[in-house]
């Protein structure tokens, strides 16, 4: 297993090279350059040329990419071209906020989704199932800024329980944004739980469990859910990945100083270094997260675990015999 983890983490290096290259290419192709976001009103042509040279805009994209990678290899993420702020410090000063929001969203999402999914699957076709599907419809198709605004109107403007924006009053101010981003996860994961539970409900081993005298609740929770976890974990992994990238929309509605907004601002100001820095760090978070999701697969389903530890296990068997 450890060999598999190391192999996966080693893959980070080529990923970072590719991501940096793609980001530089995208920023290069995008309309306008960093100079367009600065008001160069009465710059004389020579001064304008100096600016161009300062940002290496006259050289091909490959040169800028190579220069950036050289810095990266020395472990220096460089300074934002537009603002001159250190990328690493900017990212790390915002990442805890996004992490807190993502985890709160995850808890709300999972706490809502799995029970709802199971209830919907257990009495499929009854009105309970419809109510749950109706609710998940809202979670899936409602744009998050719309949801956020409605939440603010209902729970902060009309009944003043939670603050509308900012993060100063600790937990209280985290509730609404977490619900807004959590509902999206709740929607998709509840649908996923319902459909995979429905599929598992017909399995024979549930009948064996019931024949053993296992109470119905435990049959559903342990036996059925145990086997339906794979697609559920993937769905949670997918949505958590989006949340950890900091959904810029929820952060802008609740003025939550997260990574999502930083990335969008970097893209708007065509600041290649800052965008690259943000995307690479988000990518590392992604890879680690998806590795955890894959390991969860092995934990949940022994047949998959067998594939990872197949080689190792053979070795072990030999010892037993000799």
């Amino acid at each position, binding site marked *: 297993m450890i060999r598999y983890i190391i192999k996966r983490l080693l893959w980070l290096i080529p990923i970072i090279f590719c991501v940096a290259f793609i980001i530089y290419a995208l920023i290069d192709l995008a309309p306008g350059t960093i100079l367009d976001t600065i008001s160069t009103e009465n710059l004389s042509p020579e001064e304008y040329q100096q600016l161009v040279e300062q940002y290496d805009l006259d050289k091909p994209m490959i040169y800028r990419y190579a220069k950036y990678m050289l810095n990266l290899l020395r472990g220096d993420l460089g300074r934002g071209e537009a603002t001159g702020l250190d990328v690493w410090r900017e990212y790390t000063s915002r990442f805890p906020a996004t992490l807190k929001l993502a985890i709160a969203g995850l808890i709300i999402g999972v706490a809502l989704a799995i029970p709802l999914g199971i209830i919907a699957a257990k009495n499929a076709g009854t009105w309970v199932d419809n109510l749950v599907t109706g609710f998940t419809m809202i979670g899936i198709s409602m744009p998050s800024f719309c949801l956020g605004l409605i939440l603010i109107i209902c729970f902060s403007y009309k009944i003043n329980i939670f603050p509308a924006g900012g993060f100063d009053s600790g937990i209280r101010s985290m509730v609404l944004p977490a619900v807004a981003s959590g509902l999206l996860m709740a929607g998709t994961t509840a649908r996923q739980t319902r459909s995979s539970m429905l599929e598992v409900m017909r*399995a*024979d*081993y549930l*009948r*064996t*469990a*019931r*024949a*053993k*005298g*296992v*109470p*119905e609740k435990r049959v559903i929770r342990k*036996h059925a859910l*145990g*086997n339906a976890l794979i697609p559920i974990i993937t769905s949670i992994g997918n949505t958590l990945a989006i949340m950890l990238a900091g959904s810029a929309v929820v952060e802008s509605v609740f003025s939550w100083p997260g990574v999502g907004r930083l990335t969008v601002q970097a893209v708007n100001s065509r600041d290649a270094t800052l965008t690259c820095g943000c995307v690479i760090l988000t990518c590392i978070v992604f890879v680690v997260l998806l590795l955890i999701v894959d390991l969860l697969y092995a934990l*949940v*389903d*022994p*047949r998959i675990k*067998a594939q990872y530890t197949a080689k190792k296990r053979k070795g072990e068997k030999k010892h037993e015999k000799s």
Partner: protein
Amino acid sequence: MSVENINHTEENEHLRYDTCETVLEVKDLVVHYELEDETVEAVNGISFSLKRGQTIGLVGETGAGKTTTALSTLNLLPDPPGVIKNGEITVCGHKMLELKPQELEKIRGKEISMIFQDPMTSLNPVMTVGEQIAESVRLHEGISKKEAFERAQEMLELVGIPGERAIDYPHQFSGGMKQRVVIAIALACNPYVLLADEPTTALDVTIQAQVLDMINDLKKRLGTALVMITHDLGVVAEICDQVAVMYAGRIVEYGTLEDVFAHTKHPYTEGLFNSLPNIADKNAELKPIPGLMPDPTKLPPGCAFAARCQYATEACKSAQPEPTYFSDTHYVLCTRYYEPDFRLLTRGV
């Protein structure tokens, strides 16, 4: 496995229970599967009873309603389609059909448990074998996790699997070993009644013999009453004390092993025996029963076997036959026996 070696031994009389207490009683059970556009009449009035330590064989072609009977005894029918129209099932004095789910859960696995046909899908792939056995022990006897696990290892040893393998997962076992695990699960809490739904059909012959010997041995050692559901007469001969031949949801012939095998009365049972290859007479021609099982949604009014029976008369086709008793343990459902001197061509004298 020829017919002769009936091992009807009596030497296990001195076992710890007395044979007279009836552990399982089924009285005219009727089960239908109601689908959107048709209803399948799977079981149409079955009654039999089983005393402690005894074994009854439910024999019949596929679709005769054997598995449905077993599932309804445990009240485990998949409820959307399956509906128990009427009938009464008592297991060790408990009325299975009237009990609330909590009470049912206390009885299942403790007093009555079941072995399923297909070992490949009957085990939970994500739980270790030991855990699955220990689970029912802990539920019914409330002992600690560690003791339950040791008990599970003992059960595995009992069914001939090394105890250390309790930590392995089902996909690491072969078909035969999986079936042994299912048997270990069923017998973990030493139930009074064991329903075995064609336990050996999915296995090859050599493994089949081992599994049957094991069931027989466990039955003797633990004194479990056994309902053996099979379509293989050899297995019945090997294990059962009583035999019930089922056809289209009804018991057409019921009697002790000796009654049914030696004094076969019902034409369908005769047809079953005739379609068995006879070791002694190699070039004897096989005489299979003509035609197919009737469509369970369109059962004919009279005797269900009439269409395929060589002795069938108009009377058979019109009315439902009443049971005719030949002894207090042997009866048959055949209108032809209303005539006193009716005899089958071959068999039973």
